[in-house]
């Protein structure tokens, strides 16, 4: 394998990994705070992609420009989902939550199938097939834009949790549920906000991913698994962990594909997941459970 191929694969892996990381951020935020494992993650992402697709078809809006709109839409969806449905199963065991979310996921995929059909659909942008050549590297424009957008959105989210009082209050809920009740935080509303913010993040990721991938309903389960792998490797609930996990998986898959065999690349993600679960179940940047 020559240097040129490896270098190109590495760069593409990092760029793709940033987008992976952004999509996993939404999962990580929701799990970190509400302790709900969102098995409908990929479905929300696909809904975000379809929303961006519709905006592109109707208004000719570049998916990158529709990020705020789609994020707002998914925020509302996530807020309602948490406050109307998921709140009711919060006291139930893991497997019941899993089943509920899996059922919701199936309903969402089917809804997409009815509305949009099974065919992969994408956006054709003016710059869709452009690329930059820098020395040995050939970097495609959409991937670079997607990565930049992912980093911007992730930065925005991190700043929100770090500096906004609501963001701090949400972190407080995640940190100590009883403590949050004791200081009089409205935990129910903050949870709904969190699910909304997590979903908005997934929606933003959906818009960005639409640059790289054509959307069809059956994409969803694959993205759910991918996000899980990313988040577990990075550390459930750790936001930087999700980004790191995304880049690691992006690079690992790209390298496995060029060095070994593309059809084996996901096996590496799963092997990495198993190793991390065994050696460091809290993930690379996660905190050990109390």
């Amino acid at each position, binding site marked *: *394998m*020559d240097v*040129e*191929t490896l270098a*190109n*694969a590495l760069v*593409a*892996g990092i760029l*793709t990994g940033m987008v992976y990381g952004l999509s996993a951020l939404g999962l990580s935020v929701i799990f970190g705070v509400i302790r709900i494992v969102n098995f409908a993650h990929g479905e929300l992402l696909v809904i975000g992609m379809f929303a961006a697709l519709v905006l592109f078809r109707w208004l000719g809006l570049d998916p990158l420009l529709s990020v705020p709109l789609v994020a707002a839409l998914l925020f509302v969806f996530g807020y309602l989902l948490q406050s109307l449905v998921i709140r009711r199963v919060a006291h139930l065991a893991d497997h019941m939550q899993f089943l509920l979310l899996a059922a919701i996921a199936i309903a969402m995929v089917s809804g997409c*199938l009815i509305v949009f*059909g*099974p*065919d*992969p659909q*994408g956006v054709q942008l003016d710059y*869709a*097939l*452009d*690329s930059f*050549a820098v020395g040995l590297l*050939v970097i*495609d*424009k*959409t*991937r670079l834009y997607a990565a930049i957008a992912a980093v911007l959105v992730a930065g925005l989210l991190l700043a929100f949790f770090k500096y906004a009082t609501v963001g701090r209050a949400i972190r407080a809920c995640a940190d100590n549920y009883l403590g949050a009740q004791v200081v009089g935080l409205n935990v129910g509303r903050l949870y709904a906000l969190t699910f909304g913010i997590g979903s908005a993040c997934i929606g933003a990721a959906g818009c960005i991913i639409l640059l*790289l*991938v*054509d959307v*069809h309903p*059956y*994409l969803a389960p*694959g*993205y759910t698994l991918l996000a899980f792998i990313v988040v577990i490797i990075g550390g459930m609930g750790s936001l930087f962990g999700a980004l790191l996990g995304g880049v690691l998986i992006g690079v690992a*898959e*790209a390298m496995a*594909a*060029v060095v070994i*065999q*593309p*059809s084996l*690349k*996901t096996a590496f993600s799963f092997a990495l997941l198993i190793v991390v679960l065994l050696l460091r179940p809290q993930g690379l940047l996660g905190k050990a459970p109390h």
Partner: protein
Amino acid sequence: MELATSRPRRRAVLAGGVAALVAGAAPFNIGRAQGSKLKVGVLLPKSGLQAQIGIDCQRAADLAPALLKSKGFGDMELVLGDTETNPQIARAQAEKLIDQGIHVLTGCFDSGQTLAAAQVCEQKGIPFVVNIAAVPSLTEQGFKTVFRNFPTGPMIATDAFLLQKEMYAATGKAPKTVVLMHVNDTFGTSQADAITKLIDKFDMPYKIVERISYDPAARDLSAEVRKGKGTNAEAVWFISRLNDAILMTREMIKQRWEPMGIISSGPGWYEGQYMQALGKHGDDVVSLVPWYDPNKPMSKALVAAMQKAHAGLTVNTNHAHTFEAMLIIADAYKRAGATDAAKLIAALEKTDIKDNVTVGPGVKFDEKHQNPKTRCSAVQNRGGKNLAIFPAEAAETKPVWPMTPWSKRA
């Protein structure tokens, strides 16, 4: 529906309720009056990964009853099933269609799904005329009720080599190295196996430098293309499905991979949706696939009917072979004069159709129920149309080889 009105008594929920639920699930077609029409089950992947292709095949099946009736064949009624691109569902759907009283089955485009359905037909004694499926074992297992008018993997590979030689000779430009990239599913793997196994027999001008397999469900094929480009092969040979063919092309352009040409043996690269999605970038691909002979009268009838039903749609492998399967069924029904399974199978074994659609001398099954004479064509995408370039007797135009570089397309 029974279930809605007869609510099971509470006491008997455990026993009676379950029975009622199960009974309530009975399909409505059971016990429908048997007419003199031949009921043909058409089982195709109409949702899931191969949905577009299944739907494409369906278009030809839909045209068949009326078109064939006008040619003097008997009445046929289609009973439709969807495999959801899943062999297990293909099996269940085949059983369900048989329960609904079909006399003969056709389908299923995909090798895995076709094999699963074939097992059911074999078990139940229902004749099954395969429209498209290349996996050799389908006619090597000794099924008594399964017939195939589609070339097997090795036949396709053989023709692919012969057609390439013809093309390289005609254009005077042959690659010295080729990278083989195939989708890692039933069709892709068996086809790639056949190619690597047979290449030495044909004294080709090139070596296959690497065989790259990729996941049919892959979302992003950039690393795959990067690996292919990294081999520095002069030409690339794909075995793909539709969606990955589109993704592959886009990535090749973005990564500025300019091979001498793209060869495909299999679906994807010749399809209407491919050319539609890629426009000028979809041109010049050469597909070495089973094809129709545009010069045959039945082909002309099919093309005309297709134009009438779906203006702008060009006839392709999916249409030709699905239609021809219907033709074979209609022909057997005419000769058998009955809908009885045993008589239909006997008639199918004696099939000898000259007035057909696909390339080759006609339809005649060997003792394994395979049509050994069916042949492939080389077709090239040109301005959004598929034009046959080889073999010479079924050609419509001259080849463009090497292909126009991406950057030089107007």
